[in-house]
């Protein structure tokens, strides 16, 4: 066994030991909310507009009732003490004052399933985001999913580079309103890198670009492994969302005898190896070929 693997195993064993053999280190979960409930009609006495908008929202419907009969107090906790104290804010849970984890715990009572199944431990959760970073129960601004603003602008609050990238010449139709970030990513958490909502980047791309799935008789290795070896799906100023302009992109892997290793400079500006589609003027089946003579993706 290599040293690295041994160290990994030891680390994993140590972590497991802490869990299994030192239970006194585990802080017991908080006791369920103490106190008595007041009922939604009591809430409406002072918070009429909020209760009305809540009832009008999806949370005011039967689906919520099937999971909880406590209405507002499902999230805000028992409110009788708050009501009896004449609206004393210290007598009720203030969602705003909670930590990210505590805020998310409220939502996860019902929403820890489906696309939200892997929230805990996910990238966004572990970076201190909560459900309320993107969603609003009382004041959503988007039509879907109770988001505080529409996609993709919501995502661009943090992902600035991608905000600029969708303006590129070669792009997915995000700014035309035909696609959204959530078509490829699951912001709630996935077990694939980059929060891709598929088993791999290539499998996600194949959902729309199924003609590239193959398998082909002749496979192009970096294509099969990862589409982002050559493409930047968020946008590029090069044709076909390529990471670099052809032929230079292809010459990063190919420098065979004769033309792949040739330098294409100003003297060859109209050469068919540089002009128009460059390498793919000839190597058109570049994603893979099913032709017996497709070894070099010419057929």
């Amino acid at each position, binding site marked *: 066994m290599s040293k*690295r693997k041994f160290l*990994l195993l030891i680390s994993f064993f140590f*972590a497991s030991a802490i*869990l299994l053999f030192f239970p006194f*280190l*585990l*802080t017991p979960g908080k006791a369920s909310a103490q106190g008595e409930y007041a009922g939604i009609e009591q809430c409406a006495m002072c918070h009429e507009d909020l209760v009305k908008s809540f009832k009008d929202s999806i949370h005011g419907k*039967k*689906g*919520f*009732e099937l*999971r909880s009969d406590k209405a507002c107090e499902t999230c805000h906790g028992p409110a009788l003490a708050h009501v009896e104290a004449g609206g004393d804010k210290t007598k009720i849970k203030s969602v705003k004052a909670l930590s*990210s984890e505590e805020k998310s715990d409220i939502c996860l009572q019902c929403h820890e399933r*489906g696309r939200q*199944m*892997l929230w805990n431990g996910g990238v966004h959760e*572990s*970076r*201190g985001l909560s459900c309320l970073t993107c969603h609003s129960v009382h004041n959503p601004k988007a039509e879907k999913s109770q988001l505080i603003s529409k996609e993709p602008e919501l995502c661009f609050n943090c992902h*600035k580079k991608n*905000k*600029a990238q969708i*303006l590129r*010449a070669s792009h997915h139709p995000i700014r*035309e309103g035909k696609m959204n970030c959530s078509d490829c990513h699951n912001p709630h958490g996935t*077990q*694939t890198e980059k929060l891709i909502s598929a088993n*791999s980047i290539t499998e996600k791309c194949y959902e729309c670009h*199924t*003609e590239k*799935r*193959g398998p*082909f*008789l002749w496979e192009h*290795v970096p294509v*099969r*492994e990862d589409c982002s070896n050559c493409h930047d799906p968020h946008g590029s100023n090069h044709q076909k969302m390529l990471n*670099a302009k052809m032929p*230079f992109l292809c010459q990063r*892997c190919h420098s*065979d*005898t004769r033309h792949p*290793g*040739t*330098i294409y*400079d100003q*003297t060859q*500006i*109209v050469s068919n190896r540089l002009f*128009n*589609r460059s390498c793919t*003027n*000839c190597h*058109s089946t570049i994603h893979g*070929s*099913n032709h*017996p*003579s*497709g070894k070099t993706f*010419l057929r």
Partner: protein
Amino acid sequence: MRKTISILSIFLMTFVLFTIAILAEEKDETKVTGKIVSGAQDIKVDAKSSKFFEYRDVPMGFTFGVFNVSIEKGNRYLNFNLSNLRQKDGRYNLNFGEYGKFDVNFLWDKTPHRFSFDGKTLYVGREEGGVYFYNLSDQVQLSAQSAQNITETRKLISNFLTGAHEIGLELIRNKGVLDIKFSPSVPLTLRVNAKRETRNGTRPFGASFGFNHVVEVPEPIDYKTTNLDFNAEYSKKWGTILAGFSYSNFENNLQTLVWDNPFRLTDNPAGSYINGDSSAFGRLALSPSNSANQFYFKGSFKPLKNTRINGSISFGTFNQDEKLLPYTINTVLTTYYSGALSSPRDTAKAKADITSIDLTLNTRIIKNLYLNAGFNSYDFKNKTEELNLPGYTRFDQAWEPAVSVEPYSFKRSKYYGDLTFNFLKSTSLKFGFSSSSIERELGEEDEGKTEETLYHASIDSNPTDWLLLRLSYLNSSREWSLDDVKKIYPTFNFKRYHEASRDREGLNLLVSISPLSNLDLSASYMQGKDDYKKSDYGLRNQDFSNYSFDLSYSLKNGSSFYAFYSNEVYKGNQRSRQSGATYSTDPRDDWSAELKDKIDSYGAGINAVVKKDKINLDLSYIYSKADGTSFLESPPGRTAGPDLAVNFTKKIDATTLQSIRAKLLWKIQPRVAMAIGYWYEQYDLEDITRNDLKVDMLLTGMAIYLGALEPSYKYHVGFVKFIYSF
């Protein structure tokens, strides 16, 4: 058109039936809300281009932009949304259900993809039995074949190319999606998702005959994709389990492309594959029909309140078994191999098994200390039957030596662990480690293994309402097992970047402050660097940096203002060696290229409440300029070609996009509003390889293209819209 009417009819019938079902409920009030937006639009074109219409329709005249209606009664609901009626980018969505019980969503979406309005070709296309033919007049081919030499041939064809006819280069995706969710009880959800998409049209495609005989044709696209997914999920306090099956089928109704060689009417025994004047035809295999299926199981368990064990496993296959074409369409090549006009076997027999496993443990070890650790594996096992070929043809022009089809397989594995420590108020510190590897096999041959260890750390702090700080850093080192063992090329140390040893660093900083309750400022900085430390040739290093600023300000009267600026720089350095017929051993044949993309984007907008609840004014401006440049270098004394690399005199590609939008909204009455507006959009393209694109470049570039320009554009659009809300 007929399809659109059928789809709309189905929508309408379903809409009516379910509306009746909702309204039949005797108790509960019926709530109906909706919006209708229609109007008129005019366009003034200063410079025309397909690029403006790349993914959208911008019609002139009457527009029916939006029709929404929502009906709610008790726990039943129905939503119908229509946008861009009768346009090629139309979208129709019908959604109905009962809260807590079931939900049905049906979407019909159309997306165009326009490549060029300027395409021209001499070819005439026809389809026959799954084969698409592009034919030329025999006169063209006979004249070319009869010419004295290659130069005269090109001149003759050039004359014919003046008669090239226009061809539309666009494709349309029509996608229908049906999503049904049924929850017979709170814990149980059953889901069916069905998607059917057709894609039809043409796009530019290389169909060449040789190094000096490039031909571009419109690739015919006639695709159908069907996806089905069934899953069942059961969720209780102890966790959630989900099991499902998905199936995907891709059909390409056109498997083969056959096209005439402008240079030849009959196959030429004495032809040259350099000049592409050997065969009378070319034949190519288009994307093969294929299918995929997958069984998957996922579980998330909560053994303790703050502990989650998540796992998923899936088994899937990709299948492709289309008929194989013969080695070539060129009859002369049977003199080199008698079976050249036959196929090596009947069908492709291409298959891959894919297994994906993920396991994660997430737990709170002690108060404020969290552990997230796991493992994932993605195994792509290519089971395509190996094929030993006696040879193959190049461009259908020449016979090449024996070669074998070897299936490519790879397996990705990753072990990882993160510790997150929450300290101070709303501040967390995270340290993480991962060890990942990719093992590759080509047939029986081991293609090596790359192993990467990565360390990352981040700090996220939101100590007050007005301050947010996010900082992360990563450092990784990747090694390729065949670094000192396998030589890609025999005479120089060339490495391929997707597998080469590499050191990587990345930094990401985001700071947001809200000095006033109505003012938000944010700044971000990102930097990344890849150093391919053991690659003397190939991609040697690449890095990027990005900084951006954002501002948003809202006034008491409800008006708001925003502005942003972003700067990005991407650089890549690569090195190669130019060789003749054999691999050069001379470093004077080396060359290097430094590519750089620099992008500046900025914009601003204002939403002004001119008169509260009456008149609003929206103004916005966006600008984005991307400059791609290169710097080429080579030492003097090259053994082949010009002595020194000659740098391009212009930027290799540069694009600019600007858009100005203005809209005045006047609420005439509570339910009726009118909007009048204008937008201007300008796109400029400077591309040394595309700006001067012509159909006939035989004498300059030895190519016949489609001339598929996407030139710069300037469009002015004025509109008036009437909005009725109910």
